[in-house]
């Protein structure tokens, strides 16, 4: 459907050379979408290991009941910062890195529409990451009592009463928010204004469609989060009573504001991956994408529904019954467009001449495991059932199936799929397969026990637990360490591929379709300066 043909050869006489400063200044000053994409992806990979190290410390503490390694306060800080780092500093930047590298190549644009703003969006991330983690270091010097200890959700009144770390996290969120909005504006403008002549919206690659809806969601919801943490800040330091019943406010107001952002955030993390999946599935099934239009409408439907279901994150807080029923049914309605996407993914493979290179392994693994996330999500969406599962390890397992198997494994799919295009080298296929199988097996061994722990009543965010939970926690901890260590293979494979390896062809994959595969591998520093014409 979105197969594009060109009349202008992609790279004829376009090698103007690279005009950029050498060394570190190249990266500080760059306005090039490929450089910026590389920075985003490198930053994301780095923070993936930072966030991973934090949670391995948590899993080590949970190896057996009782307190072994750390104080409960530090445990609380680790889980909250783990989440913020993984969501805002690993998954979102990885998706933005994909967007930066791929959208201009896929739509035949010479660069992103606003190149300097693009650079600003990236360079806001390291300061934000520093703000998030600095309180850990300050505490070592006796300043403050460590990082944000409320979990990533900042719930009032705990966050109103918390220490220095809350203020740091509030400003980290502000800066991350500015970065996300700048990135979103840039992506929307690029898609609307920079497409190759002849590429109508209904010929737009699905990856770009997924990101377009993501960008709309970010623009609609990130400012609401900014507003919520601003109210938190003024409640903490300037005497307002937004979340204080004595002054007519309400702590539950914070939950509404937070999850008005927080629920769409799930789709912000997933939509870029959903956009990428059909490309990979089609390539390795050697068939066109099935149901292009259905998927576009599916993205739009999920985008709209995602902003009207937020209160299912706090069913147990005490809401009127009609509100509970509304939020339950609207939440369950999301499974309809999502089922359309699943159907299209599977139908794309149906009767295909399939081969299972690493990206395809990750893509098929994604479908199965993300399916489990969807089904367990339906269980949690049920108000009556949720009264039992709320705030248990069942929820933890559910959203790790959504965000690790759905999000991170989707990112890995994209990395293996596009790395040969970016570097001009093939990655090590054998290592890639090892990485996939180790990841899938250890991921399931980490989180399947957590479903059972949750069903049995183990609460989340508690460093100690009852004796009967010991065995499952031990399995989970061992598997988590295997999962974490397997990711070193991923990093090594990327490193090896960047350094060298068998030469990748322009098309890289036999079944690949789209403008990006008409460029050389790696593409020249400036590509599509003369836009291709799509028929």
């Amino acid at each position: 459907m979105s197969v594009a043909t060109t009349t202008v050869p992609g790279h004829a006489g376009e090698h103007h050379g690279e005009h950029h400063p050498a060394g570190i200044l190249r990266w500080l000053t760059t306005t090039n979408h490929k450089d910026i994409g590389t920075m985003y992806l490198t930053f994301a990979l780095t923070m993936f290991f930072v966030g991973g190290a934090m949670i391995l410390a948590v899993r080590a503490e949970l190896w057996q009941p009782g307190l072994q390694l750390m104080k409960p306060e530090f445990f609380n800080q680790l889980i909250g910062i783990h989440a913020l780092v993984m969501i805002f500093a690993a998954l979102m930047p990885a998706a933005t890195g994909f967007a930066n590298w791929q959208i201009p190549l896929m739509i035949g644009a010479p660069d992103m529409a606003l190149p300097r703003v693009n650079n600003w969006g990236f360079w806001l991330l390291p300061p934000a990451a520093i703000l998030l983690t600095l309180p850990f270091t300050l505490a070592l010097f006796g300043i403050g009592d460590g990082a944000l200890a409320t979990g990533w959700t900042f719930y009032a009144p705990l966050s109103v009463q918390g220490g220095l770390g809350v203020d740091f996290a509030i400003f980290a969120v502000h800066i991350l928010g500015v970065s996300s909005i700048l990135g979103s504006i840039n992506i929307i403008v690029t898609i609307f204004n920079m497409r190759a002549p002849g590429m109508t919206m209904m010929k737009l690659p699905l990856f770009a469609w997924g990101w377009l809806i993501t960008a709309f969601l970010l623009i609609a919801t990130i400012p609401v989060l900014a507003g919520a943490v601003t109210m938190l800040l003024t409640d903490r330091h300037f005497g307002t009573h937004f979340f204080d019943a004595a002054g007519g406010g309400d702590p539950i107001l914070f939950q509404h504001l937070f999850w008005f952002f927080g629920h769409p955030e799930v789709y912000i993390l997933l939509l870029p991956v959903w956009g990428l999946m059909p490309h990979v599935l089609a390539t390795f099934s050697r068939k066109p994408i099935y149901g292009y239009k259905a998927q576009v409408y599916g993205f739009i439907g999920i985008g709209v529904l995602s902003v009207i279901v937020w209160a299912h994150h706090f069913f147990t807080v005490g809401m009127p019954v009609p509100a509970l029923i509304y939020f339950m049914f609207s939440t369950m309605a999301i499974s309809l467009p999502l089922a359309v996407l699943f159907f299209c993914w599977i139908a794309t493979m149906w009767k295909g001449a399939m081969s299972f290179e690493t990206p395809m392994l990750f893509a098929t693994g994604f479908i199965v495991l993300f399916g489990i996330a969807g089904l367990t999500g339906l269980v949690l969406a049920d108000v009556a059932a949720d009264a039992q599962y709320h705030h248990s390890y069942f929820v933890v397992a559910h959203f790790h199936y959504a965000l690790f198997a759905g999000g991170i494994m989707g990112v890995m799919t994209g990395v293996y799929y596009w790395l040969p295009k970016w570097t001009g080298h093939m990655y090590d296929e054998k290592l890639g397969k090892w990485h996939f199988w180790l990841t899938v097996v250890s991921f399931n061994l980490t989180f399947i026990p957590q479903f059972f722990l949750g069903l049995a009543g183990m609460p989340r965010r508690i460093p100690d637990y009852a004796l009967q939970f010991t065995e499952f926690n031990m399995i989970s901890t061992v598997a988590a360490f295997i999962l974490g260590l397997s990711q070193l293979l991923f990093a090594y494979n990327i490193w090896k591929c960047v350094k060298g390896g068998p030469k990748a062809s322009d098309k890289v994959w036999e079944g690949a379709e789209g403008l990006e595969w008409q460029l050389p591998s790696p593409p020249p520093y400036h590509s599509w300066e003369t836009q291709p014409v799509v028929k």
Partner: protein
Amino acid sequence: MTESMAAQPHSHHYHVPQPSLYPFILSGGMFTLALGFILKMNGFAPGPWVMLGGVGIILYVLFGWFGKVIGESQAGAYRDWEDKSFRYGMVWFIASEVAFFAAFFGALFYVRTISVPELGNMVSAHGTTLWPDFTGAWPSAGPKGAQFTPMGAWGIPALNTALLLSSGVTVTWAHWALLKNKRTQLNLGLAATVLLGATFLGFQAYEYYHAYHELGLTLGAGAYGATFYMLTGFHGFHVTLGAIMLTVILGRTLKGHFTPERHFAFEGVAWYWHFVDVVWLLLFVLVYWL
């Protein structure tokens, strides 16, 4: 709309700017400002000085970066294609601002229709009303809040409404002049807009002074005080930014910048000004009047 846009190949290469250090420095400035603010709020002595450093860096970048963009614009680097990017960009930036104000309007809606009435009817486990003296009627500072007099709508706020609406007219008048290349009318219209904006801000400052010293209406006056000051305060901040941007545009028109065909900066700022105007109308109705 987008279908026709992509139909024709562009006659020139898109302007991809040269490498620039400004974005990186700006990020550093924002980090410094945030760090200083955190230190100040938590009582560390260097806080205000760190903040000052951050503001200095940000101002340096604003002058440098905008100066560079204006230079590029005057040199003719931007044509229709780039112009369209800027327009789309501004539209979606304003959309994000709408969402930011929506959070505070949402909070106002919540405290007025949910939390305050609920607190008025709250019954304890023993069947007694928790706060018998508290009726839960708006305006309210909550069951334990301070005594205050709410801000009336028909004094200064009504005057301010007239001022902002007039400024919306004058900026449009200036735009018409720009389109017809009547430079005097353009300059006059812009100057009048800036003046009306500044007067608005003056009245707003007086209103705050009056509220603090005579009405007992402070930021700490419960749900009313919090929503009143955060909504009007962020609006006032946006009016300030808008007035500064209009002043810059006035400076540029006085130097002869902009043509009837190409004047994105003027329009972008005008859109922004209309946006703060609309927010004010919502404020006037929902915060002051009803």
